């Protein structure tokens, strides 16, 4: 409908609204900026977007997004390939890698078990993970799925699979955030923190 009234410009504004956190107002600002003030940038953006759409797929080894067959993390020989960190999304890979506490490789599930949505082991690529675990290359997996019921369920299932392949599995600790004051923490987080306590 917008298209009828305002033509291509209207369509562009409408399409920009697909972006997370972008409402009609900012979409309008973006559209005018791209078309009036930075036409070169706009052209590059359009080309890169199209090229990414065509070329970015899932890494054959870890399912992270990449424009190669094997992503740069998996092909980095400087990393420890015997430890695999299992995460729900590519954004989680980014987050863990930014923290630079982890020098191993990843496996991206692209979600968590969600039976009511029909998301099970196949959708999460667990067959591929199982194959990799069978390869004997992997000594340990670290389960970094979200601390939700579904994330925990997913971690539980993967730890069972790891056990069968005789691979050690551990779960990242969830609990009191750094700088967090106890009285402001909800009871289930606090429960988690107590259960996951360790000697000092």
């Amino acid at each position: 409908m917008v298209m009828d009234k305002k033509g291509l410009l209207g369509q562009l504004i409408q399409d920009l609204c697909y972006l997370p956190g972008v409402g009609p107002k900012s979409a309008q600002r973006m559209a005018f900026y791209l078309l009036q003030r930075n036409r070169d940038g706009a052209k590059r953006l359009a080309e890169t977007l199209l090229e990414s759409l065509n070329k970015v797929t899932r890494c054959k080894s870890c399912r992270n997004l990449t424009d190669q067959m094997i992503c740069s993390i998996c092909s980095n020989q400087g990393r420890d390939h015997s430890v695999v960190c299992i995460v729900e999304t590519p954004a989680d890979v980014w987050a863990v890698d930014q923290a630079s506490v982890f020098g191993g490789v990843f496996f991206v599930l692209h979600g968590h078990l969600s039976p009511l949505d029909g998301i099970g082991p196949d959708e999460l690529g667990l067959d591929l993970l199982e194959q990799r675990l069978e390869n004997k290359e992997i000594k340990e997996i670290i389960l970094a799925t979200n601390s939700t019921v579904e994330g925990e369920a997913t971690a539980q299932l993967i730890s069972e699979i790891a056990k069968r392949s005789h691979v050690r599995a551990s779960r990242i600790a969830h609990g009191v955030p750094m700088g967090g004051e106890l009285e402001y923490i909800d009871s289930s987080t606090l429960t988690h923190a107590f259960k996951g306590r360790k000697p000092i």
Partner: protein
Amino acid sequence: MSERLVSLQPGFLIRHWPYGETSLLADVLTRDFGRISLLARGLRKPKSKLAGVLMPFVPLLLSYGAGRGELHYLSHAEHQHSAFDSPLQGKALFCGFYINELITHFLHQSDPHPEVFELYQQSLMSLQNGAEVESCLRCFEVNLLELVGYGLDIRYDSQTHQLVEADRKYHFSVEQGPRESVYGEINGTTLHALHSRQFKDKESLLQAKKIMRMVIDFHLQGKLLKSRETIAKIIKHM
């Protein structure tokens, strides 16, 4: 739909979806108002305190007000017990998801069913306490259907109108019920077990599962239970 504020209403989270950038849309089973839709605004923001509270299979107390149409705005949520000691684990957890899917199919929005709420709570508790999952599920199914008006009439042979006998064999069809036949695939004991909700052996559990699957599929009128197939695959991996 209630216009007033509802305060500390007992409820369970049945299903949820992300909503916008930072909010969550929840399908909730409440004790007094049935299944309702709740919008939890800002729940997915990093510092939201509600995120750790609003989870499935945990008894909640929910406060909410009227929103748009059938949608209510959540204002507060807490756990009914200060801490939940033994969450569902393993197979029992996945059975919980299956139970949730049945609730979404067999309860209409805003149709109060305190007895279903009670049944749901009881079933979760038995699952949590390590009850045998298959018999727990069959009891939930047969009780749920009865409470929403699809009770099973399996005490009498549909043709002879005689009481079903433990040592005879029966055919079962959803529309007609049991009918005695030497080639019947269902034992009389299974029908007795379903009727009394007491499953004593593996065979009657297996047959009861077949019957309940037929009955549920019949009432779903072609809709599929997504969790059924998915859970079967999950359990294969366990």
